[in-house]
């Protein structure tokens, strides 16, 4: 998944303890939930909880313009059309949540499988269940170490979910979906196949002598 670039907010002190690469740094966590539907669209929800000084800085930067976050998301996800933005703050817990729909996250590839691009090489993926995967990534955002936890939920209508790579070596998910067939759905394929084979079987069955 795309690393989300956010306006942050975090001053860091290194008094008497210069930064050394091998030191353990506690990252700032960003949770992002992707709920895919059977037609490749996704409802995305990003959320973050800040401490008091971060929240103060965040409010100074965002002010009354949370649409800045919308623009940041549009730049983070240039490959999709984003709509239905919704922003919520839980000021007493210094937390915010931004949700929106991303159209066209999944598409059918040349092999006829549904495909979702993860836009990164060798991501750290944990399978939680058949339809739920967690991606964890750490990166620096304006000098702040971020830990982004992407929770990807495939719909029940999907099956055969596999992790793979595209031609450029970037990670992808491929899967099958029984949704979205219209008249050309998988039902027509299955029933059509059964009827055709059954009829053919009867036709070719040798008659009684």
């Amino acid at each position, binding site marked *: 998944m*795309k690393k989300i*670039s956010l306006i942050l907010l*975090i*001053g*860091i*002190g*290194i*008094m*008497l*303890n*210069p930064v*050394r690469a091998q*030191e*353990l*740094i*506690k990252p*700032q966590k960003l949770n992002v939930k992707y709920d895919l539907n059977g*037609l*490749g669209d996704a409802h995305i929800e990003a959320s973050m909880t800040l*401490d008091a*000084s971060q929240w103060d800085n965040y409010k100074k930067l965002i002010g009354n*313009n949370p*649409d800045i976050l919308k*623009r940041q998301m549009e*730049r*983070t996800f*240039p*490959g*999709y*059309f984003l709509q239905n933005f919704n922003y919520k703050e839980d000021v007493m817990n210094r937390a915010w949540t931004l949700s929106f729909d991303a*159209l*066209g996250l999944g*598409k*059918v*590839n*040349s092999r*006829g499988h549904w495909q979702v691009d993860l836009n990164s090489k060798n991501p750290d993926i944990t399978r939680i269940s058949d339809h739920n995967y967690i991606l964890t990534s750490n990166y620096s955002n*304006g*000098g702040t170490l971020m830990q982004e936890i992407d929770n990807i939920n495939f719909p029940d209508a999907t099956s055969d979910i596999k992790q793979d790579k595209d031609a450029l070596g970037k990670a992808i998910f491929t899967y099958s979906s029984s949704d*979205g*067939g*219209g*008249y*050309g759905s998988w039902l*027509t*394929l299955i*029933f*059509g196949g*059964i*009827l*055709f*084979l*059954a*009829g*053919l*079987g*009867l*036709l070719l*069955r040798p*008659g009684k002598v």
Partner: protein
Amino acid sequence: MKKKLPALILTVAGAILLAIHYLPFGKGDLDITIKQASYIMPAAYKVYANSDALNGEYYLFKMLMTNEGKNTISDAKVTYRIPNYVDWTDLETIPRIYPGQHVVVRCYPQFKDDIVNKMTQSQEKVEIRITYNGGQSIDEDFKFNLMGRNQFVYTDLPPEEIAGYPDMFRNDQLVGCFVTPQDPIIKYYTQQVQEKVMKGEEASVSGKPDDAVKFLMGVYAATYVSHMVYSGTEGIPQKLGDISSLVQSTRLPREVVTGNTGLCIELSLLYASILKAAGLHPVIFLIPGHAYPGILVNGQYYAIEATGIGGEGLGSRMSPADAFKAGMKELNEFVQNVQAGDNRYFFVDIDAMEAKGVIPMELKDDEFLRKKIDDIAASFGGGARSVPEEPGSSMEKNLASRNDGGGGGGGSESGMRKYGGIVSFDYPAGWKRFDYPAPSWPFLVSEIDSRDGSSGIDVINLNGFRSSGQAIEWLRRTMARSGRYMTYQYQNSNNGYDVYKGVTSSSAGSRQWEAVFRSSGSGIVGVSIGSSAFSEREGMVNQILSSIR
């Protein structure tokens, strides 16, 4: 025959269902929505061509295709062209689009290298063709502005979206496209400067800050002796589709050299090109109404005021040493403004932007321009020595004064060196000083480390705080977020300073420290001295503390 009739019906019904599944019956109602770029800057054609550059945010268009019919659409193929610039090109073929499904196709246009010969702005048309279901097609088109190669448009946001200064200058991340170290003309000029002005240099080989600063001043000396002059221009406001932006005509580095004139951003681009051609790490500092070049060496930034060349018609001219001094003063102000949260102050790290896909344009060699470089290089005759030296401002003196800690005065007879700035104190001459060692933490003004790394001094400037207690508590909380845990105890007040003692621990170990803080005009300044072997170094700590003024 009658006995076979049910089987025949089953077979035919099955065949019909299979045909419905595989064949594209019905019209398939494909809805198209296009989001387009209002303009394309030829200088950035390699960014527009690369879907990975800058996260893919610079595209010509992206198109949302929605199947609003009841039938599956098959083999939807999207092609486009830009007459006179890009022939019909396949973008993508989507095997199936199910009813209700959305598909997004993006276009990163592959302009030819000669696009950089386009000198003036024009309006061009993009033609898009979508064919599907083996014969059906949809044609779309839109117009956009193709700028001239020198034109730089500052933003890609419509006016109603602009919330502040950074939005107005959103495209500053593309200035790296004008940094052309691979331009044969710039390479040739760099060689001439290295040979005739610097008389040989090893800045990129040695990796020493002194050598890099000498190089920076050598480039300035080259522009000085060739009588390059500063010439300012302003951006012109233009409406480009939905966008209203300042559009500035920016000369390429080769044009600055051969034209022997440039404004601040153009001189900065020239410096960045030469520095990069010489294997150094250039940066460009951008502040309201001005830009100046700099260099990153061993984690430290250095800057020079490139426009110090002024010009006879403009009055005074700065010597290289004074231009460097002015640049470092501006850099200091830059850091203070960043620290104060002023988002109008930022810098472009050319190497970092290149890693993100901001690649310069291809420029061809030109015999005429080489001849002009030869003519300019003839003025280099006396090398840097032909630059008039002013008392106390030669390159050597400047470097010497910077090495002594930047605060004036060399190492004292007792083996101590003086630190000067927001506070002053003496520290062991053998310790290594780093100014603004972490640009993202601008409150850390200086870090001075002992040779074995076991001891160190931090000079801290925290704007906006009214008391030392408030400031140190803020430090404690912010450090905790980065895995450093600090405990401290207020001791007393002495000579206007509040004295604290404490310990900071992390996975790298613990350091005991003693720190003093006092109010400054805009906040709190402080000095802390710490060591992992504090008791053994206590005498030295007290010596430093007693020298703080």
